[in-house]
């Protein structure tokens, strides 16, 4: 037999063998499990929650972390003294590690005690005394490990002892200890330490007594200490006093703030105020630790329901139940309707329910969404691209799931987030800014012309509520319906809000000196500039829509798109004219939104968050009165006046309050969106058996197309063989 013939036969035999092997392999796998399961098969029916994160957390140190993607993890690990009750609305603070909510003691400037109803101007100091619960233990961690004689094992390590240790798992021993009040005080001192670079430094330095002085003293002490391996050494903050923060006993500490500041309790419910054991800080400050990436930013040490056992933010992060977690129970009280929705079935049960939470990094929307549909994620947001596949609106305007989603048992949970997106006018700009009647009319005309309802419909699939002022729903002072409308922009017709006709806007524009979009004095067309950092195809559609809205008034809008850095620079220097921006609540108090229009908080000059640089002295005075008041009719009346002023001056085109739509699988229980509480994982419960069953049903591999492909390949090979034979047989001329 010739060489080519042998080759052809061997090739065919190899293909046949490969097909048989593939078939056998396929049959074996099909019998075992889902081929597309991204998790180990042994986890299939375990009590594990699967979630995704789209942006890797940068910092896990509670003194530094301030982003949502960081709070997803650290809020489950660190426990501040207070938390938001999971089910109750309006948002209510309840004790977490504290024994009770503290009642502030007010003092005058001589340190004399004042009655609880003393006027704010007389209150020089407010003292919060917090008693924490006994018996709360930290998660197992090497920083607490001790030998038989009680000496710390890993608190005086040499480089040689560190050896080849590159991860926290390299330390064989772990230990724990009881949470004490001094740990909370230590963390507050960390917030004040300049080298920690806490984003809360500037806020707290205005309130906590002695905060700034402590920062100066600590920096001086640190600078005076000799460096170790070229790095500044560990500074024992517990030895440096801070006038306003004191340890009063093993389980008691106090914080003194300047004046009256009821919002301080909200700050204390954030991870910034979680306890930090000095052992952990010292442990990670030892020479050689940082060069091995062993830092507090990578390995948190807390008392919370979960502890971080896998920290690979490029792939996966895993939270495991903290074996030392203190008794904590599912709430017994909820809103009306919660019981009917099954949210109180677990009332009084010990938390947390879930043993392990696996977060996988998903950079792209498509794989994330497809994995959710395959049952490999237990919850998901809805991207704009998938929206029509998932949600449909009933004739009454109610959002509901499509039939295919309902068939899978998927549930839709919606809620309005305590956030606002708006278009701002730079009040320092000579054309759109200022407080003259002309400027107000121009801004109101534009506010009427920009149809936010249409924007929500086109760009957000209806996921938003047109705003009427700076306060979103759920925040004290927000008034729903016609009562809270902006009377300059909306009419109330039959109990429903309706944007004023464009003719009104044109009339206002003419009164502002721009009839038909032209300057009445010069005859030149009115040209306005919109500054944005959004670029790309989606942004282009957005900008086209904006231009269209301005064309309703014959105003020419020039879009100045730039990168984020340049945009921020423009904002800082007040070089923008019109811009869009947003704000998420730090805490559920109107002060956290109304300060966005407070003059001294202006971005230009004040380096604050008032990006429109709105500065109305009357508004500022009212803000100063309102900020320290307790919620009640008097405060509500002041808020109404402030909102009314802002509506009259129109420094913003009130944009919208975002409505969030999230999807949950049938096997996930106790889901209720709480936009303030970031430690919600402990309340969730899953049914692993149902999940395993559904996953099997949804993910059976489809193998027959493989056979078809192989058959096609064989069909292709056959004519090739024939051609080859013909060629070989062809006799040379």
């Amino acid at each position: 037999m010739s060489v080519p013939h042998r080759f052809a036969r061997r090739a065919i035999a190899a293909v046949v063998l490969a097909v048989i092997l593939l078939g056998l392999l396929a049959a074996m796998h099909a019998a075992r499990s889902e081929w597309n399961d991204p998790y180990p098969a042994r986890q299939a029916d375990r009590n594990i929650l699967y979630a995704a994160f789209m942006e890797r957390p940068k910092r896990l140190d509670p003194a530094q972390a301030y982003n949502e993607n960081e709070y997803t993890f650290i809020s489950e690990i660190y426990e501040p003294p207070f938390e938001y009750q999971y089910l109750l609305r309006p948002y209510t603070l309840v004790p977490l590690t504290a024994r009770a909510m503290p009642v502030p003691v007010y003092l005058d400037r001589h340190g004399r005690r004042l009655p609880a109803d003393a006027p704010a101007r007389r209150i020089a100091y407010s003292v919060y005394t917090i008693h924490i619960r006994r018996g709360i233990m930290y998660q197992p961690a090497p920083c607490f490990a001790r030998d038989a004689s009680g000496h710390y094992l890993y608190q005086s390590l040499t480089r040689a002892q560190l050896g080849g240790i590159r991860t926290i798992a390299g330390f064989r021993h772990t230990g724990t200890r009881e949470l004490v009040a001094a740990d909370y005080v230590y963390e507050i001192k960390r917030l004040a330490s300049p080298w920690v670079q806490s984003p809360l430094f500037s806020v707290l330095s205005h309130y906590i007594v002695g905060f700034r002085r402590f920062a100066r003293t600590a920096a001086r002490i640190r600078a005076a200490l000799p460096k170790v391996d070229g790095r500044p050494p560990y500074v024992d903050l517990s030895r440096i006093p801070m006038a306003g923060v004191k340890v009063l006993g093993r389980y008691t500490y106090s914080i003194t703030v300047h004046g009256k500041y009821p919002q301080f309790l909200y700050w204390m419910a954030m991870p910034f105020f979680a306890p930090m054991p000095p052992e952990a800080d010292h442990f990670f400050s030892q020479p050689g630790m940082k060069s091995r990436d062993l830092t507090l930013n990578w390995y948190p040490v807390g008392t919370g329901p979960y502890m971080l056992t896998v920290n690979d933010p490029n792939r996966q992060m895993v939270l495991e139940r903290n074996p030392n977690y203190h008794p904590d129970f599912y709430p017994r009280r909820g809103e009306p309707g919660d019981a009917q929705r099954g949210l109180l079935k677990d009332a009084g049960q010990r938390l947390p329910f879930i043993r392990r939470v696996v977060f996988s990094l998903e950079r792209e929307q498509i794989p994330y969404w497809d994995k959710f549909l395959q049952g490999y994620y237990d919850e998901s947001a809805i991207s704009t691209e998938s929206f029509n596949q998932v949600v449909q609106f009933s004739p009454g305007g109610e959002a509901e799931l499509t039939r295919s989603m309902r068939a899978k048992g998927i549930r839709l949970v919606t809620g309005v987030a305590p956030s606002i997106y708006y278009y701002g006018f730079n009040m320092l700009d000579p054309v759109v800014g200022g407080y003259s009647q002309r400027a107000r009319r121009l801004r109101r005309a534009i506010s009427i012309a920009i149809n936010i309802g249409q924007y929500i419909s086109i760009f957000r699939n209806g996921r938003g509520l047109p705003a009427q002022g700076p306060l979103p729903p759920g925040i004290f002072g927000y008034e729903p319906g016609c009562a809270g409308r902006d009377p300059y922009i909306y009419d109330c017709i039959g109990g429903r809000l309706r944007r004023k006709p464009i003719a009104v806007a044109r009339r206002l524009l003419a009164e502002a000196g721009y009839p038909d979009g032209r300057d009445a004095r010069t005859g030149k067309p009115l040209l306005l500039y919109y500054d944005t950092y959004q670029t790309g195809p989606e942004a282009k559609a957005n900008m086209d829509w904006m231009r269209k809205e301005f064309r309703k008034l014959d105003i020419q809008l020039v879009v100045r798109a730039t990168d984020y850095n340049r945009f921020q620079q423009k904002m800082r220097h007040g070089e923008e004219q019109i811009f869009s921006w947003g704000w998420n609540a730090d805490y559920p108090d109107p002060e956290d939104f109304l300060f966005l229009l407070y003059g001294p908080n202006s971005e230009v000059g004040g380096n604050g968050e008032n990006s429109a640089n709105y500065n109305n002295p009357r508004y500022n005075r009212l803000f100063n009165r309102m900020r320290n008041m307790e919620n009640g009719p008097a405060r509500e009346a002041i808020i109404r006046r402030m909102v009314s002023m802002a509506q009259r001056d129109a420094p913003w085109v009130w944009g919208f309050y975002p409505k969030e739509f999230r999807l949950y699988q049938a096997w996930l229980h106790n889901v209720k969106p709480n936009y303030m509480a970031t430690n919600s994982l402990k309340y969730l419960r899953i049914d692993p058996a149902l999940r395993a069953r559904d996953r099997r049903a949804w993910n059976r591999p489809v193998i027959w197309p493989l056979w078809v492909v192989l058959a096609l390949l064989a069909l292709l090979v056959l004519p090739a063989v024939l051609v080859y034979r013909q060629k070989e047989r062809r006799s040379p001329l």
Partner: protein
Amino acid sequence: MIAYIIRRILYAIPILIGVNLLTFALFFFVNSPNDMARLHLGVKRVTPQAIAEWKAEHGYDQPLFYNAAAAGAGKLTHTLFFQRSVKLFVFDFGRSDDGRDIGSDIRQRMWPSLAIQVPTLVLGLAVCISMALMTVFFRGTYLDATGVVLAVVMMSISQLFYVIGGQYLFSKVLRLVPISGYDTGLSAIKFVILPIAVGIVSGIGLGVRLNRTFFLEESGKDYVRTARAKGLSEIRVLFRHVLKNAMIPILTGVVVVIPTLFTGSLILESFFGIPGLGSYLIDAIRAQDFGIVHVMVFLGSVLYIVGLILTDISYTLVDPRVRLG
């Protein structure tokens, strides 16, 4: 040859300094240290003091190229450019802006990149050579024409299409492999099958066209005519003569990309969730982490230069006529 290699390495130094200079200029033309600090510290409640402290902590408080306040040589050495560049030339990669050891991250993340890139290169090469040989063997027939048209069509399609199409077909519709993700050890196999397949298929068009050209060029030479005249079969001519001699340009193309396999694929890693060096670079660009961008560009340049030197050396191995001097 040693003298040649030393000379090439010395040539590489000014090239790397130039690349370094360009990286600095381009990066800081777009991002100022203030912008980097703001991005790192977050958008809320960032004070000028916090920015100044962040810059001092990360060494961005120094001038970029020229320090007028310093004395003597310090005018050049007490600059961000000098401080960062000198360390790179001794392969001390330093720390990223979020405090991580870049060298350690690179060592950890090059393995997932290699897990995708090496099989893609090897298998892709085998597939492309086989298919190119087949089209040459059947040249002038409908099989050749179909193959060439298919190759042109395939090379005209963006890799992104193959990625999304592959994920849709094999992960979503047929449910044969996970749509994205990664695991360590043998568990990684099920995650890398699809990216490797996509990498191979997306490279077939270009690879077949290129290799076919090499083979056709060889098959028209005198020694091939002589071999055929001696009565050798077409298969033997192709495999024993044409393939062997066409391997020189093929090898050249392959050796030059071998070192760059370490740096991974930006698209594949991003869409398939592979925690390799490609996604490392993308994350760093998004986060404006100059430390990582600087190191990755430098490393890419070094690897490319190494690739070129290896290519030259490989010439001498496959073609005894070539002498490096």
